[in-house]
């Protein structure tokens, strides 16, 4: 058990830079555009991370019961579809936050719909370090695999959390016009990123 905890944590920590690079663009624009309070922003970060954990656990479950099919997750069709869906959600959020009333999307955020889905879709793939953890510990029992994957999630979440915390601090000045403008730019950036993800996803699907 101790070995699974340590191995999962350190492999996750070693992979943390890659996770940051994937999560930061998505999470930072959502935080910028949410116009929430500090607590609300922390909730977004937490739910996003929770979405990632759910994704990892789903991958671990698939690996445990159907290891030979886990490679399907890395196929361009699955990756491309995830990316298109991710992009569409971000574009939808951009629409909700800019064209419609921003408070509606804040409400959606507080309910945790978007961050959870974004976190899940961002991490729903099999990277090499995660595969290494799974291949070692899923032979014993599924609970041990879950522990290892959970610690992998903890290790890989450290850097992304540190990277987004400065953004969270911005929301102390919730009602300032400067922050309102930053939120507007964040919403636009979310739409732009969504568009880039959709195009990249379609490119993957078309081949």
């Amino acid at each position, binding site marked *: 058990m101790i070995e699974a905890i340590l191995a999962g944590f350190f492999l996750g920590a070693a992979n943390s*830079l890659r996770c*940051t690079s994937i999560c930061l*663009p998505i999470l*930072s624009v959502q935080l910028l555009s949410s116009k929430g309070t500090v607590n609300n922003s922390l909730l977004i970060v937490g739910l996003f991370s929770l979405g990632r954990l759910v994704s990892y656990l789903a991958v671990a479950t698939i690996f445990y019961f159907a290891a030979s099919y886990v490679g399907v997750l890395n196929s361009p069709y699955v990756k491309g579809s995830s990316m298109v869906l991710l992009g569409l959600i971000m574009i939808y959020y951009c629409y909700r936050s*800019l064209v419609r009333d921003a408070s509606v999307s804040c409400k959606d955020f507080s309910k945790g719909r978007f961050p959870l889905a974004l976190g899940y879709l961002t991490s729903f793939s099999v990277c090499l370090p995660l595969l290494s953890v799974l291949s070692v510990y899923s032979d014993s029992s599924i609970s041990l695999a879950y522990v290892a994957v959970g610690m992998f999630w903890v290790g890989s979440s450290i850097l992304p959390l540190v990277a987004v915390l400065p953004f969270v601090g911005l929301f102390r000045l919730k009602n300032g016009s400067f922050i309102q*403008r930053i939120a*507007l*730019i964040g919403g636009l950036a979310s739409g732009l*990123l969504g568009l*880039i993800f959709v195009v990249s996803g379609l490119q993957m699907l078309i081949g």
Partner: protein
Amino acid sequence: MLQKRAAVAKPKFRVDHLVASVFVAAVAFYIYSSQQLLLGVILAPISGIFTFLASTSNKTYRMRSVFVVALTIVMWVTFAAFLAQLGGYLELWISRHERISLVPSALTGSGYVSVLCPFLIPSSVGNQIYVSTPIYIKFFTEFPLSLGTFLLVFAFFMVFALLLGKGWCGWLCPFGGLGEAARQAKGFGRVYNAVKRRFMRLTTIRASDITPAKASQLIFDLKYAILFVTILLSLIFAVQWFCVFCWAGVLSWVSSPLNLSITILIAVIFFIGLPLISRRKWCHFICPLGAALSLLDKVAPFKIVVNRESCTDCGVCSTLCPTFAIQHGVDGGSIKVTDTCDKCLVCVEKCPQSAIALKIFSLQIEPKVHLVTLSVVAGLILFYWFIVVVYELALILV
């Protein structure tokens, strides 16, 4: 309706205009005679006379237009001549000679082209993280010029960007100069005017037409979102995604007919089509470099100031402003100068009440001569640097 200008101030001769002109002429001679004496002899009086005329004229906005278009033409003709000398295809030429890319990103492979773009720096950091090679060392040692020259160019850009702010786009940008040229190409007769009238409503977004403040803010802030995403993706994924549709990236895409076609289409739409009909939309709503300069403009010394007491809200300034910088009657208020102002001075010189002025902070000094002098000197240095880069590249590559 445009009101008749109340009083047209006559050009005044001042000693500082003459001093500035002599200074600019001396700078031009000093810089260019070191390379070619004849060039220095020709350029010194031209730049000196231009500075004098632009400083004393009541139509500085037109002289600015001539200046930036001339600078643009000279730079692009020089570069085209250089490309022609290489056989027309810079990237192909580089790959043929097995020169490795300075920025081996997924989208751009031609480091020698990318190296001229300021967005190279964040993607270099990304490469540093991902490729784990000392990209900075590579960058500096393989840069066609020396590290010292690179730092000098970077310092030059930063200093003039800090001094001119968004004025850089109006007075010096060789990309926006093409749009400016198209914008000035008016009066092509009946056909042109008919086409313009037909499409004006579809393509022109006048500041006064954007009544909802949020819609207006959205359009104005799009460039900041593009800047943010550009830097973020360049830094994190080491991908210069903006190059995919930045028309300046045309030189990087010569080997891909599809991408080249898209880039040329965008260039034609944004730098010829839309400016010909209305204004430079790329520069003020899309260009991320313009957005960065808008941020620097907050601390730049040159400011357009409106005297609220003299202003009659006639709307002449917002109608004439080529950059959507003056919003008239937004939210029921008076006129407002936004961050897209590129210091073209058309509002200053056309205001019927002389209610708009160019200021250097709140100092009581003549600002126009300083703006013109600074811009002309920066233009001279920019063009000199460009010649040096092209010359050095030619020495290395040919």
